[in-house]
Protein backbone atom coordinates (compact mmCIF):
# COMPACT_ATOMS: atom_id res chain seq x y z
CA UNK A 1 0.00 0.00 0.00
CA UNK A 2 1.53 3.29 -1.02
CA UNK A 3 1.16 6.32 1.14
CA UNK A 4 0.74 8.81 -1.67
CA UNK A 5 -2.68 9.79 -0.41
CA UNK A 6 -1.44 12.49 1.90
CA UNK A 7 0.83 13.80 -0.81
CA UNK A 8 -2.13 14.63 -3.04
CA UNK A 9 -3.53 17.23 -0.72
CA UNK A 10 -1.48 20.08 -2.19
CA UNK A 11 -2.71 19.34 -5.73
CA UNK A 12 -6.29 19.88 -4.62
CA UNK A 13 -7.72 21.71 -7.60
CA UNK A 14 -8.06 25.43 -7.33
CA UNK A 15 -11.48 26.74 -8.18
CA UNK A 16 -11.42 28.06 -11.75
CA UNK A 17 -14.13 30.47 -12.83
CA UNK A 18 -17.48 29.15 -13.73
CA UNK A 19 -17.16 29.55 -17.48
CA UNK A 20 -13.82 27.81 -17.61
CA UNK A 21 -15.20 24.96 -15.58
CA UNK A 22 -18.32 24.65 -17.73
CA UNK A 23 -16.17 24.30 -20.84
CA UNK A 24 -13.53 22.09 -19.24
CA UNK A 25 -16.01 19.69 -17.60
CA UNK A 26 -18.25 19.66 -20.67
CA UNK A 27 -15.28 18.70 -22.82
CA UNK A 28 -14.11 16.01 -20.35
CA UNK A 29 -17.60 14.55 -20.41
CA UNK A 30 -17.72 14.71 -24.22
CA UNK A 31 -14.48 12.75 -24.40
CA UNK A 32 -15.94 10.23 -22.00
CA UNK A 33 -19.01 9.72 -24.17
CA UNK A 34 -16.90 9.45 -27.31
CA UNK A 35 -14.69 6.80 -25.74
CA UNK A 36 -17.88 4.80 -25.22
CA UNK A 37 -18.25 4.73 -29.00
CA UNK A 38 -14.67 3.54 -29.36
CA UNK A 39 -14.99 0.94 -26.61
CA UNK A 40 -18.25 -0.57 -27.80
CA UNK A 41 -18.10 -0.43 -31.60
CA UNK A 42 -20.77 -3.13 -31.82
CA UNK A 43 -23.32 -0.64 -30.57
CA UNK A 44 -22.53 1.87 -33.24
CA UNK A 45 -22.53 -0.89 -35.85
CA UNK A 46 -26.10 -1.71 -34.88
CA UNK A 47 -27.06 1.94 -35.14
CA UNK A 48 -25.54 2.14 -38.62
CA UNK A 49 -27.05 -1.06 -39.83
CA UNK A 50 -30.63 0.17 -39.42
CA UNK A 51 -30.52 3.16 -41.81
CA UNK A 52 -28.42 1.22 -44.31
CA UNK A 53 -30.99 -1.54 -44.19
CA UNK A 54 -33.73 0.99 -44.83
CA UNK A 55 -31.83 2.32 -47.84
CA UNK A 56 -31.45 -1.18 -49.26
CA UNK A 57 -34.90 -2.52 -48.42
CA UNK A 58 -36.86 0.55 -49.46
CA UNK A 59 -34.51 1.52 -52.26
CA UNK A 60 -34.54 -1.85 -53.96
CA UNK A 61 -37.43 -3.98 -52.64
CA UNK A 62 -40.26 -1.45 -52.23
CA UNK A 63 -38.65 1.19 -54.42
CA UNK A 64 -39.70 -0.44 -57.67
CA UNK A 65 -43.35 0.01 -56.74
CA UNK A 66 -43.03 3.51 -55.31
CA UNK A 67 -44.19 6.62 -57.09
CA UNK A 68 -42.10 9.77 -56.94
CA UNK A 69 -43.54 13.13 -57.99
CA UNK A 70 -41.87 14.57 -61.12
CA UNK A 71 -40.79 11.05 -62.15
CA UNK A 72 -37.62 11.22 -60.08
CA UNK A 73 -35.54 8.28 -58.97
CA UNK A 74 -36.91 6.71 -55.80
CA UNK A 75 -33.51 6.24 -54.24
CA UNK A 76 -32.71 9.91 -54.81
CA UNK A 77 -36.04 10.67 -53.14
CA UNK A 78 -35.41 8.25 -50.30
CA UNK A 79 -31.94 9.23 -49.10
CA UNK A 80 -32.84 12.64 -47.54
CA UNK A 81 -35.63 10.84 -45.68
CA UNK A 82 -33.23 8.24 -44.31
CA UNK A 83 -30.81 10.99 -43.22
CA UNK A 84 -33.54 12.63 -41.16
CA UNK A 85 -34.84 9.31 -39.89
CA UNK A 86 -31.38 8.41 -38.63
CA UNK A 87 -31.29 11.69 -36.71
CA UNK A 88 -34.65 10.80 -35.16
CA UNK A 89 -33.58 7.31 -34.10
CA UNK A 90 -30.60 8.89 -32.35
CA UNK A 91 -33.14 9.67 -29.62
CA UNK A 92 -32.75 6.05 -28.53
CA UNK A 93 -28.98 6.34 -28.16
CA UNK A 94 -29.23 9.59 -26.22
CA UNK A 95 -32.07 8.47 -23.96
CA UNK A 96 -30.53 5.09 -23.21
CA UNK A 97 -27.15 6.60 -22.34
CA UNK A 98 -28.68 9.15 -19.97
CA UNK A 99 -31.01 6.58 -18.39
CA UNK A 100 -28.04 4.30 -17.86
CA UNK A 101 -26.04 6.99 -16.10
CA UNK A 102 -28.94 7.97 -13.87
CA UNK A 103 -30.07 4.42 -13.12
CA UNK A 104 -26.60 3.13 -12.22
CA UNK A 105 -25.69 6.00 -9.95
CA UNK A 106 -22.94 7.42 -12.17
CA UNK A 107 -24.85 10.70 -12.23
CA UNK A 108 -24.90 10.69 -8.43
CA UNK A 109 -21.14 10.56 -8.39
CA UNK A 110 -20.93 13.48 -10.85
CA UNK A 111 -23.45 15.45 -8.82
CA UNK A 112 -21.55 14.92 -5.58
CA UNK A 113 -18.34 16.21 -7.18
CA UNK A 114 -17.32 19.83 -7.77
CA UNK A 115 -18.25 19.48 -11.44
CA UNK A 116 -20.19 21.98 -13.54
CA UNK A 117 -23.87 21.02 -13.44
CA UNK A 118 -24.14 21.41 -17.19
CA UNK A 119 -21.35 18.93 -17.94
CA UNK A 120 -23.65 15.93 -18.19
CA UNK A 121 -25.91 17.43 -20.86
CA UNK A 122 -23.19 19.39 -22.64
CA UNK A 123 -21.04 16.27 -22.88
CA UNK A 124 -24.00 14.29 -24.13
CA UNK A 125 -25.09 16.80 -26.78
CA UNK A 126 -21.63 17.40 -28.19
CA UNK A 127 -20.82 13.70 -28.28
CA UNK A 128 -24.15 12.97 -29.98
CA UNK A 129 -23.47 15.67 -32.57
CA UNK A 130 -20.09 14.14 -33.36
CA UNK A 131 -21.82 10.82 -33.63
CA UNK A 132 -24.45 12.28 -35.96
CA UNK A 133 -21.71 13.63 -38.25
CA UNK A 134 -20.27 10.12 -38.34
CA UNK A 135 -23.66 8.64 -39.16
CA UNK A 136 -24.30 11.16 -41.93
CA UNK A 137 -20.86 10.46 -43.41
CA UNK A 138 -21.52 6.74 -43.53
CA UNK A 139 -24.94 7.34 -45.09
CA UNK A 140 -23.51 9.69 -47.72
CA UNK A 141 -21.08 6.98 -48.76
CA UNK A 142 -23.88 4.44 -48.77
CA UNK A 143 -26.10 6.85 -50.77
CA UNK A 144 -23.44 7.53 -53.36
CA UNK A 145 -23.06 3.78 -53.77
CA UNK A 146 -26.76 3.32 -54.61
CA UNK A 147 -26.93 6.23 -57.07
CA UNK A 148 -27.91 9.16 -54.86
CA UNK A 149 -26.14 12.49 -55.42
CA UNK A 150 -26.21 16.12 -54.43
CA UNK A 151 -26.87 18.31 -57.43
CA UNK A 152 -26.63 21.86 -56.18
CA UNK A 153 -23.04 22.23 -55.09
CA UNK A 154 -21.12 21.48 -51.93
CA UNK A 155 -22.29 24.68 -50.21
CA UNK A 156 -25.94 23.70 -50.35
CA UNK A 157 -25.05 20.14 -49.40
CA UNK A 158 -23.31 21.40 -46.25
CA UNK A 159 -26.32 23.57 -45.47
CA UNK A 160 -28.44 20.45 -45.72
CA UNK A 161 -26.14 18.69 -43.25
CA UNK A 162 -26.49 21.74 -41.00
CA UNK A 163 -30.27 21.37 -41.00
CA UNK A 164 -29.95 17.67 -40.19
CA UNK A 165 -27.70 18.47 -37.23
CA UNK A 166 -30.17 21.08 -36.02
CA UNK A 167 -32.81 18.39 -35.98
CA UNK A 168 -30.39 16.14 -34.10
CA UNK A 169 -29.88 18.78 -31.41
CA UNK A 170 -33.62 18.99 -30.82
CA UNK A 171 -33.82 15.18 -30.75
CA UNK A 172 -30.94 15.09 -28.25
CA UNK A 173 -32.90 17.25 -25.83
CA UNK A 174 -35.95 15.04 -26.21
CA UNK A 175 -33.70 12.04 -25.59
CA UNK A 176 -32.15 13.62 -22.50
CA UNK A 177 -35.59 14.40 -21.15
CA UNK A 178 -36.71 10.85 -21.85
CA UNK A 179 -33.64 9.36 -20.17
CA UNK A 180 -34.18 11.48 -17.07
CA UNK A 181 -37.93 10.81 -16.95
CA UNK A 182 -37.51 7.05 -17.41
CA UNK A 183 -34.21 6.19 -15.73
CA UNK A 184 -34.14 2.63 -17.03
CA UNK A 185 -32.20 2.03 -20.25
CA UNK A 186 -34.21 -1.06 -21.21
CA UNK A 187 -37.50 0.79 -20.92
CA UNK A 188 -36.16 3.74 -22.90
CA UNK A 189 -35.11 1.34 -25.64
CA UNK A 190 -38.63 -0.08 -25.71
CA UNK A 191 -40.33 3.32 -25.78
CA UNK A 192 -38.30 4.87 -28.58
CA UNK A 193 -39.44 2.67 -31.44
CA UNK A 194 -43.22 3.07 -31.00
CA UNK A 195 -42.56 6.78 -30.51
CA UNK A 196 -40.37 7.22 -33.56
CA UNK A 197 -41.87 4.79 -36.04
CA UNK A 198 -45.22 6.58 -36.59
CA UNK A 199 -43.28 9.81 -37.04
CA UNK A 200 -41.30 8.28 -39.87
CA UNK A 201 -44.28 6.48 -41.42
CA UNK A 202 -46.65 9.45 -41.47
CA UNK A 203 -44.14 11.79 -43.06
CA UNK A 204 -42.55 12.43 -46.43
CA UNK A 205 -39.66 10.06 -45.65
CA UNK A 206 -40.88 7.11 -47.71
CA UNK A 207 -43.96 8.44 -49.57
CA UNK A 208 -44.79 11.90 -50.86
CA UNK A 209 -47.65 13.36 -48.77
CA UNK A 210 -49.52 14.51 -51.86
CA UNK A 211 -50.01 10.84 -52.73
CA UNK A 212 -51.66 10.14 -49.34
CA UNK A 213 -55.36 10.65 -48.50
CA UNK A 214 -55.92 14.39 -47.96
CA UNK A 215 -56.06 14.54 -44.14
CA UNK A 216 -53.18 12.13 -43.70
CA UNK A 217 -51.12 14.09 -46.19
CA UNK A 218 -51.70 17.25 -44.15
CA UNK A 219 -50.54 15.55 -40.96
CA UNK A 220 -47.51 14.18 -42.80
CA UNK A 221 -46.64 17.62 -44.15
CA UNK A 222 -46.80 19.22 -40.72
CA UNK A 223 -44.67 16.48 -39.18
CA UNK A 224 -41.43 18.13 -37.98
CA UNK A 225 -39.46 15.37 -39.64
CA UNK A 226 -41.05 16.22 -43.02
CA UNK A 227 -39.94 19.84 -42.79
CA UNK A 228 -36.29 18.82 -42.48
CA UNK A 229 -36.63 16.17 -45.18
CA UNK A 230 -38.28 18.59 -47.65
CA UNK A 231 -35.68 21.29 -47.01
CA UNK A 232 -32.83 18.83 -47.34
CA UNK A 233 -34.27 17.47 -50.62
CA UNK A 234 -34.35 20.98 -51.94
CA UNK A 235 -30.77 21.76 -50.89
CA UNK A 236 -29.45 18.49 -52.31
CA UNK A 237 -31.53 18.97 -55.46
CA UNK A 238 -33.29 15.65 -54.97
CA UNK A 239 -36.81 14.98 -56.33
CA UNK A 240 -40.09 15.12 -54.43
CA UNK A 241 -40.25 18.75 -53.42
CA UNK A 242 -43.94 18.51 -52.62
CA UNK A 243 -47.01 20.43 -53.63
CA UNK A 244 -48.00 24.04 -53.40
CA UNK A 245 -49.38 24.11 -49.87
CA UNK A 246 -48.00 26.81 -47.57
CA UNK A 247 -46.08 24.30 -45.53
CA UNK A 248 -44.48 22.73 -48.60
CA UNK A 249 -43.46 26.16 -49.85
CA UNK A 250 -41.81 27.09 -46.57
CA UNK A 251 -39.94 23.91 -45.80
CA UNK A 252 -36.61 25.63 -45.01
CA UNK A 253 -38.29 28.00 -42.57
CA UNK A 254 -40.01 25.05 -40.92
CA UNK A 255 -36.81 22.97 -40.91
CA UNK A 256 -35.31 25.68 -38.72
CA UNK A 257 -38.48 26.52 -36.79
CA UNK A 258 -39.40 23.01 -35.68
CA UNK A 259 -36.04 22.13 -34.08
CA UNK A 260 -35.89 25.53 -32.40
CA UNK A 261 -39.39 25.06 -31.03
CA UNK A 262 -38.73 21.49 -29.86
CA UNK A 263 -35.50 22.53 -28.20
CA UNK A 264 -37.26 25.44 -26.53
CA UNK A 265 -39.79 23.00 -25.10
CA UNK A 266 -37.61 20.05 -24.16
CA UNK A 267 -34.42 21.73 -22.95
CA UNK A 268 -36.16 23.45 -20.00
CA UNK A 269 -38.16 20.27 -19.31
CA UNK A 270 -34.93 18.26 -19.21
CA UNK A 271 -33.22 20.81 -16.97
CA UNK A 272 -36.19 20.68 -14.60
CA UNK A 273 -36.08 16.89 -14.56
CA UNK A 274 -32.39 17.06 -13.78
CA UNK A 275 -33.03 19.36 -10.85
CA UNK A 276 -35.78 17.02 -9.67
CA UNK A 277 -33.19 14.32 -9.12
CA UNK A 278 -32.52 16.00 -5.78
CA UNK A 279 -36.14 15.75 -4.66
Amino acid at each position, binding site marked *: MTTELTAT*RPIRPDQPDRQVRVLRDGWTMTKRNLSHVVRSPEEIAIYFSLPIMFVLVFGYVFGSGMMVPDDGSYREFLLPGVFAMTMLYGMGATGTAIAYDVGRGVV*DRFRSMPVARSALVVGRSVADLVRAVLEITVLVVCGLAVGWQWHRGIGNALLAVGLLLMLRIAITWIGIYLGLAVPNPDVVGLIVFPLAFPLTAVSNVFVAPELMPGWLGTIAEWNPLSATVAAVRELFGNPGLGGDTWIAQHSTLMAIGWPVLLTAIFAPLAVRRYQH*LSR
Partner: protein
Amino acid sequence: MNEPAIVADGVRKRYGDTVALDGFDLIVPAGTVHGLLGPNGAGKTTAVRIFATLLRFDSGRATIAGYDVARDAGTVRGLIALTGQYAAVDEVLSGRQNLLLFGQLLGLSKRQARRRADELLEQFELTDAATKSAGQYSGGMRRRLDLAASLIRTPDVLFLDEPTAGLDPRSRNRLWDAVRSVVGRGTTVLLTTQYLDEADQLADHISVMDSGRVVAEGTADDLKARIGGDRIEVIVHHAGDLRTTADLVERITANRADVDLDQRQVSAPVRERVAALTEVVRALHDTGVAVEDIGLRRPTLDEAFLSLTGRPTGSPDPAPEPSHESGRREEISA
Protein backbone atom coordinates in the same frame (compact mmCIF):
# COMPACT_ATOMS: atom_id res chain seq x y z
CA MET B 1 -10.10 20.80 14.36
CA ASN B 2 -12.79 21.84 16.82
CA GLU B 3 -15.34 22.07 14.06
CA PRO B 4 -17.10 18.69 13.79
CA ALA B 5 -16.71 17.19 10.30
CA ILE B 6 -20.36 16.22 10.01
CA VAL B 7 -23.35 17.71 11.78
CA ALA B 8 -27.04 17.07 11.36
CA ASP B 9 -29.47 18.97 13.50
CA GLY B 10 -33.11 17.92 13.46
CA VAL B 11 -33.10 17.03 9.77
CA ARG B 12 -36.47 16.06 8.36
CA LYS B 13 -37.19 14.64 4.94
CA ARG B 14 -40.38 13.16 3.61
CA TYR B 15 -41.27 11.62 0.29
CA GLY B 16 -44.99 12.11 -0.10
CA ASP B 17 -46.49 10.28 2.87
CA THR B 18 -43.32 8.46 3.83
CA VAL B 19 -41.13 10.06 6.46
CA ALA B 20 -37.54 9.15 5.63
CA LEU B 21 -35.81 11.29 8.26
CA ASP B 22 -37.68 12.38 11.33
CA GLY B 23 -35.50 14.72 13.35
CA PHE B 24 -32.16 13.17 12.50
CA ASP B 25 -29.28 14.36 14.70
CA LEU B 26 -25.64 13.49 14.28
CA ILE B 27 -22.27 14.91 15.27
CA VAL B 28 -19.11 13.32 13.91
CA PRO B 29 -15.79 14.74 15.13
CA ALA B 30 -13.15 15.30 12.45
CA GLY B 31 -10.81 12.41 11.74
CA THR B 32 -13.02 9.66 13.12
CA VAL B 33 -14.89 6.78 11.54
CA HIS B 34 -18.56 6.81 12.34
CA GLY B 35 -20.96 3.98 11.62
CA LEU B 36 -24.63 4.48 10.83
CA LEU B 37 -26.19 1.15 11.63
CA GLY B 38 -29.76 0.28 10.84
CA PRO B 39 -32.13 -1.94 8.89
CA ASN B 40 -33.35 -1.25 5.37
CA GLY B 41 -35.52 1.82 5.33
CA ALA B 42 -34.09 3.27 8.54
CA GLY B 43 -33.00 6.37 6.63
CA LYS B 44 -29.25 5.74 6.38
CA THR B 45 -28.99 6.29 2.65
CA THR B 46 -31.28 9.31 2.78
CA ALA B 47 -28.98 10.84 5.39
CA VAL B 48 -25.88 10.20 3.28
CA ARG B 49 -27.54 11.60 0.15
CA ILE B 50 -28.40 14.77 2.06
CA PHE B 51 -24.82 15.19 3.33
CA ALA B 52 -23.51 14.53 -0.19
CA THR B 53 -25.69 17.40 -1.55
CA LEU B 54 -27.69 14.96 -3.69
CA LEU B 55 -30.98 15.46 -1.92
CA ARG B 56 -32.87 18.46 -0.61
CA PHE B 57 -34.52 18.19 2.79
CA ASP B 58 -37.54 19.80 4.40
CA SER B 59 -36.20 21.24 7.64
CA GLY B 60 -33.29 21.15 10.02
CA ARG B 61 -29.63 21.85 9.30
CA ALA B 62 -26.77 19.78 7.95
CA THR B 63 -23.15 20.88 7.67
CA ILE B 64 -19.88 19.44 6.44
CA ALA B 65 -16.80 20.99 8.07
CA GLY B 66 -19.03 23.88 9.06
CA TYR B 67 -20.39 24.49 5.54
CA ASP B 68 -24.14 24.27 5.11
CA VAL B 69 -24.94 21.49 2.62
CA ALA B 70 -27.94 23.39 1.30
CA ARG B 71 -26.43 26.89 1.01
CA ASP B 72 -22.79 26.05 0.27
CA ALA B 73 -23.35 22.90 -1.75
CA GLY B 74 -20.56 23.85 -4.15
CA THR B 75 -18.00 24.17 -1.35
CA VAL B 76 -19.22 20.97 0.29
CA ARG B 77 -18.77 19.05 -2.98
CA GLY B 78 -15.14 20.13 -2.96
CA LEU B 79 -14.64 18.48 0.45
CA ILE B 80 -16.45 15.18 0.15
CA ALA B 81 -16.36 11.91 -1.74
CA LEU B 82 -19.10 9.34 -2.03
CA THR B 83 -18.88 5.62 -2.59
CA GLY B 84 -22.37 4.41 -3.06
CA GLN B 85 -24.39 1.32 -2.56
CA TYR B 86 -24.50 0.85 -6.31
CA ALA B 87 -20.96 1.01 -7.57
CA ALA B 88 -21.10 4.32 -9.35
CA VAL B 89 -18.43 3.82 -11.95
CA ASP B 90 -18.73 3.93 -15.72
CA GLU B 91 -19.09 0.31 -16.74
CA VAL B 92 -18.10 0.81 -20.37
CA LEU B 93 -14.82 2.51 -19.57
CA SER B 94 -11.85 0.59 -18.20
CA GLY B 95 -10.83 0.94 -14.58
CA ARG B 96 -8.00 3.24 -15.59
CA GLN B 97 -10.22 5.37 -17.84
CA ASN B 98 -12.66 5.75 -14.96
CA LEU B 99 -9.95 7.09 -12.68
CA LEU B 100 -8.69 9.41 -15.43
CA LEU B 101 -12.21 10.71 -16.04
CA PHE B 102 -12.91 11.44 -12.39
CA GLY B 103 -9.41 12.86 -11.92
CA GLN B 104 -9.90 15.31 -14.77
CA LEU B 105 -13.34 16.26 -13.53
CA LEU B 106 -11.65 17.08 -10.22
CA GLY B 107 -9.40 19.49 -12.06
CA LEU B 108 -6.22 17.42 -12.31
CA SER B 109 -4.16 17.85 -15.45
CA LYS B 110 -3.92 14.89 -17.78
CA ARG B 111 -0.49 14.04 -16.43
CA GLN B 112 -1.45 14.35 -12.78
CA ALA B 113 -4.60 12.29 -13.41
CA ARG B 114 -2.58 9.58 -15.12
CA ARG B 115 -0.05 9.38 -12.32
CA ARG B 116 -2.76 9.30 -9.67
CA ALA B 117 -4.72 6.62 -11.54
CA ASP B 118 -1.68 4.37 -11.67
CA GLU B 119 -0.98 4.84 -7.97
CA LEU B 120 -4.55 4.00 -7.04
CA LEU B 121 -4.76 0.98 -9.34
CA GLU B 122 -1.65 -0.31 -7.64
CA GLN B 123 -2.90 0.47 -4.16
CA PHE B 124 -6.25 -1.24 -4.70
CA GLU B 125 -4.74 -4.21 -6.53
CA LEU B 126 -6.41 -3.44 -9.82
CA THR B 127 -3.33 -2.99 -11.99
CA ASP B 128 -3.86 -6.28 -13.80
CA ALA B 129 -7.44 -5.33 -14.65
CA ALA B 130 -6.62 -1.71 -15.48
CA THR B 131 -7.61 -1.89 -19.15
CA LYS B 132 -10.63 -4.16 -18.71
CA SER B 133 -14.11 -2.62 -18.82
CA ALA B 134 -15.38 -1.99 -15.30
CA GLY B 135 -18.51 -3.86 -16.38
CA GLN B 136 -16.45 -7.05 -16.47
CA TYR B 137 -15.09 -6.57 -12.95
CA SER B 138 -16.27 -8.75 -10.09
CA GLY B 139 -18.43 -7.11 -7.44
CA GLY B 140 -15.48 -6.72 -5.11
CA MET B 141 -13.23 -5.22 -7.78
CA ARG B 142 -15.92 -2.76 -8.76
CA ARG B 143 -16.31 -1.61 -5.16
CA ARG B 144 -12.55 -1.19 -4.87
CA LEU B 145 -12.52 0.87 -8.06
CA ASP B 146 -15.40 2.92 -6.70
CA LEU B 147 -13.47 3.51 -3.49
CA ALA B 148 -10.33 4.39 -5.47
CA ALA B 149 -12.33 6.96 -7.45
CA SER B 150 -13.34 8.55 -4.14
CA LEU B 151 -9.72 8.86 -3.10
CA ILE B 152 -8.26 10.53 -6.19
CA ARG B 153 -7.76 13.50 -3.95
CA THR B 154 -7.96 12.96 -0.22
CA PRO B 155 -11.44 14.03 0.79
CA ASP B 156 -12.11 15.70 4.12
CA VAL B 157 -15.20 13.55 4.49
CA LEU B 158 -15.74 10.19 2.84
CA PHE B 159 -19.19 8.59 2.70
CA LEU B 160 -19.31 4.83 2.38
CA ASP B 161 -22.89 3.80 1.75
CA GLU B 162 -23.15 0.06 2.47
CA PRO B 163 -19.77 -0.55 0.90
CA THR B 164 -19.88 -4.33 1.22
CA ALA B 165 -23.56 -5.06 0.56
CA GLY B 166 -23.76 -8.16 -1.59
CA LEU B 167 -20.07 -9.06 -1.38
CA ASP B 168 -18.79 -12.48 -0.39
CA PRO B 169 -16.82 -12.65 2.89
CA ARG B 170 -13.43 -12.64 1.15
CA SER B 171 -14.16 -9.56 -0.95
CA ARG B 172 -15.62 -7.95 2.11
CA ASN B 173 -12.43 -8.47 4.08
CA ARG B 174 -10.38 -7.02 1.24
CA LEU B 175 -12.59 -3.96 1.07
CA TRP B 176 -12.36 -3.55 4.83
CA ASP B 177 -8.57 -3.59 4.51
CA ALA B 178 -8.79 -0.97 1.80
CA VAL B 179 -11.00 1.22 3.99
CA ARG B 180 -8.66 0.82 6.96
CA SER B 181 -5.75 1.89 4.81
CA VAL B 182 -7.35 5.26 4.12
CA VAL B 183 -8.54 6.14 7.60
CA GLY B 184 -6.10 7.65 9.97
CA ARG B 185 -4.98 10.08 7.27
CA GLY B 186 -7.25 12.82 8.50
CA THR B 187 -10.28 11.79 6.47
CA THR B 188 -13.52 11.56 8.39
CA VAL B 189 -15.55 8.55 7.33
CA LEU B 190 -19.29 8.07 7.60
CA LEU B 191 -20.11 4.44 6.99
CA THR B 192 -23.62 3.05 6.65
CA THR B 193 -24.19 -0.62 7.14
CA GLN B 194 -26.77 -3.20 8.11
CA TYR B 195 -24.16 -5.32 9.81
CA LEU B 196 -23.15 -4.74 13.41
CA ASP B 197 -20.07 -6.75 12.57
CA GLU B 198 -18.99 -4.27 9.88
CA ALA B 199 -19.56 -1.23 12.06
CA ASP B 200 -17.63 -3.02 14.80
CA GLN B 201 -14.71 -3.72 12.45
CA LEU B 202 -14.37 -0.22 11.06
CA ALA B 203 -16.08 2.41 13.18
CA ASP B 204 -14.92 4.22 16.31
CA HIS B 205 -18.40 5.30 17.10
CA ILE B 206 -21.78 3.95 16.04
CA SER B 207 -25.20 5.54 15.73
CA VAL B 208 -28.08 3.14 15.49
CA MET B 209 -30.86 4.40 13.24
CA ASP B 210 -34.46 3.38 13.12
CA SER B 211 -37.42 5.00 11.42
CA GLY B 212 -35.50 8.09 10.39
CA ARG B 213 -33.73 8.97 13.61
CA VAL B 214 -30.85 7.94 15.81
CA VAL B 215 -32.09 5.67 18.58
CA ALA B 216 -28.81 4.74 20.24
CA GLU B 217 -25.25 5.89 20.10
CA GLY B 218 -21.93 4.69 21.46
CA THR B 219 -18.85 2.65 20.79
CA ALA B 220 -19.26 -0.89 19.53
CA ASP B 221 -18.54 -2.15 23.06
CA ASP B 222 -21.20 0.12 24.57
CA LEU B 223 -23.76 -1.13 22.11
CA LYS B 224 -22.84 -4.76 22.50
CA ALA B 225 -23.15 -4.42 26.24
CA ARG B 226 -26.62 -3.03 25.76
CA ILE B 227 -27.63 -5.60 23.19
CA GLY B 228 -26.40 -8.44 25.34
CA GLY B 229 -24.64 -11.62 24.45
CA ASP B 230 -25.93 -15.08 23.64
CA ARG B 231 -29.33 -16.22 24.80
CA ILE B 232 -30.48 -19.60 25.88
CA GLU B 233 -33.80 -20.73 24.46
CA VAL B 234 -35.96 -23.52 25.79
CA ILE B 235 -39.15 -24.68 24.10
CA VAL B 236 -41.27 -26.85 26.38
CA HIS B 237 -43.86 -29.42 25.39
CA HIS B 238 -46.62 -28.30 27.75
CA ALA B 239 -47.45 -24.65 28.29
CA GLY B 240 -48.08 -25.58 31.93
CA ASP B 241 -44.34 -26.07 32.44
CA LEU B 242 -43.45 -22.53 31.34
CA ARG B 243 -43.53 -21.05 34.86
CA THR B 244 -41.30 -23.74 36.35
CA THR B 245 -38.89 -23.52 33.43
CA ALA B 246 -38.69 -19.72 33.62
CA ASP B 247 -37.89 -19.84 37.36
CA LEU B 248 -35.24 -22.43 36.76
CA VAL B 249 -33.64 -20.55 33.87
CA GLU B 250 -33.63 -17.31 35.86
CA ARG B 251 -31.99 -19.03 38.82
CA ILE B 252 -29.21 -20.53 36.65
CA THR B 253 -28.49 -17.55 34.41
CA ALA B 254 -29.11 -14.94 37.10
CA ASN B 255 -30.95 -12.96 34.40
CA ARG B 256 -34.57 -12.18 33.82
CA ALA B 257 -36.18 -14.68 31.45
CA ASP B 258 -38.63 -13.79 28.67
CA VAL B 259 -41.62 -16.05 28.26
CA ASP B 260 -43.37 -16.46 24.93
CA LEU B 261 -46.69 -18.24 25.47
CA ASP B 262 -47.48 -18.84 21.80
CA GLN B 263 -44.10 -20.42 21.08
CA ARG B 264 -44.04 -22.10 24.51
CA GLN B 265 -40.57 -20.62 24.76
CA VAL B 266 -38.44 -19.34 27.61
CA SER B 267 -35.32 -17.34 26.80
CA ALA B 268 -32.69 -15.44 28.77
CA PRO B 269 -29.25 -13.92 28.26
CA VAL B 270 -26.38 -16.15 29.34
CA ARG B 271 -22.83 -15.42 30.33
CA GLU B 272 -21.15 -18.81 30.49
CA ARG B 273 -22.66 -20.35 27.41
CA VAL B 274 -21.90 -24.02 27.70
CA ALA B 275 -22.02 -24.21 31.47
CA ALA B 276 -25.44 -22.59 31.49
CA LEU B 277 -26.71 -24.88 28.78
CA THR B 278 -25.52 -28.00 30.59
CA GLU B 279 -26.95 -26.86 33.88
CA VAL B 280 -30.33 -25.97 32.42
CA VAL B 281 -30.56 -29.31 30.61
CA ARG B 282 -29.73 -31.19 33.80
CA ALA B 283 -32.13 -29.17 35.95
CA LEU B 284 -34.98 -29.61 33.44
CA HIS B 285 -34.32 -33.32 33.35
CA ASP B 286 -34.38 -33.51 37.15
CA THR B 287 -37.70 -31.68 37.41
CA GLY B 288 -39.19 -33.81 34.66
CA VAL B 289 -40.17 -31.03 32.27
CA ALA B 290 -40.71 -32.31 28.73
CA VAL B 291 -38.44 -30.27 26.47
CA GLU B 292 -39.10 -29.92 22.76
CA ASP B 293 -36.01 -27.93 21.87
CA ILE B 294 -33.15 -26.19 23.64
CA GLY B 295 -30.23 -24.19 22.36
CA LEU B 296 -27.96 -21.15 22.41
CA ARG B 297 -28.36 -18.31 19.99
CA ARG B 298 -26.65 -14.99 19.20
CA PRO B 299 -29.01 -12.04 19.12
CA THR B 300 -30.13 -11.09 15.63
CA LEU B 301 -30.05 -7.51 14.49
CA ASP B 302 -33.79 -7.37 15.09
CA GLU B 303 -33.29 -8.37 18.69
CA ALA B 304 -30.51 -5.85 18.96
CA PHE B 305 -32.98 -3.20 17.90
CA LEU B 306 -35.58 -4.51 20.25
CA SER B 307 -33.08 -4.27 23.02
CA LEU B 308 -31.82 -0.81 22.00
CA THR B 309 -35.11 0.76 21.13
CA GLY B 310 -37.55 -1.21 23.23
CA ARG B 311 -39.55 -2.10 20.16
CA PRO B 312 -39.20 -4.23 17.06
CA THR B 313 -37.91 -2.49 13.92
CA GLY B 314 -40.59 -0.61 12.09
CA SER B 315 -43.26 -0.56 14.79
CA PRO B 316 -44.52 2.93 15.45
CA ASP B 317 -44.65 3.36 19.21
CA PRO B 318 -41.71 3.12 21.57
CA ALA B 319 -42.40 0.82 24.48
CA PRO B 320 -40.84 1.36 27.91
CA GLU B 321 -37.30 0.12 28.39
CA PRO B 322 -37.33 -3.63 28.88
CA SER B 323 -36.38 -4.36 32.46
CA HIS B 324 -34.14 -7.35 31.77
CA GLU B 325 -31.64 -4.96 30.28
CA SER B 326 -30.03 -3.88 33.50
CA GLY B 327 -26.72 -2.45 32.40
CA ARG B 328 -24.91 -5.75 32.28
CA ARG B 329 -21.69 -5.89 30.36
CA GLU B 330 -21.59 -8.97 28.24
CA GLU B 331 -18.91 -10.16 25.87
CA ILE B 332 -19.86 -11.68 22.58
CA SER B 333 -17.27 -13.16 20.34
CA ALA B 334 -17.35 -11.50 16.92
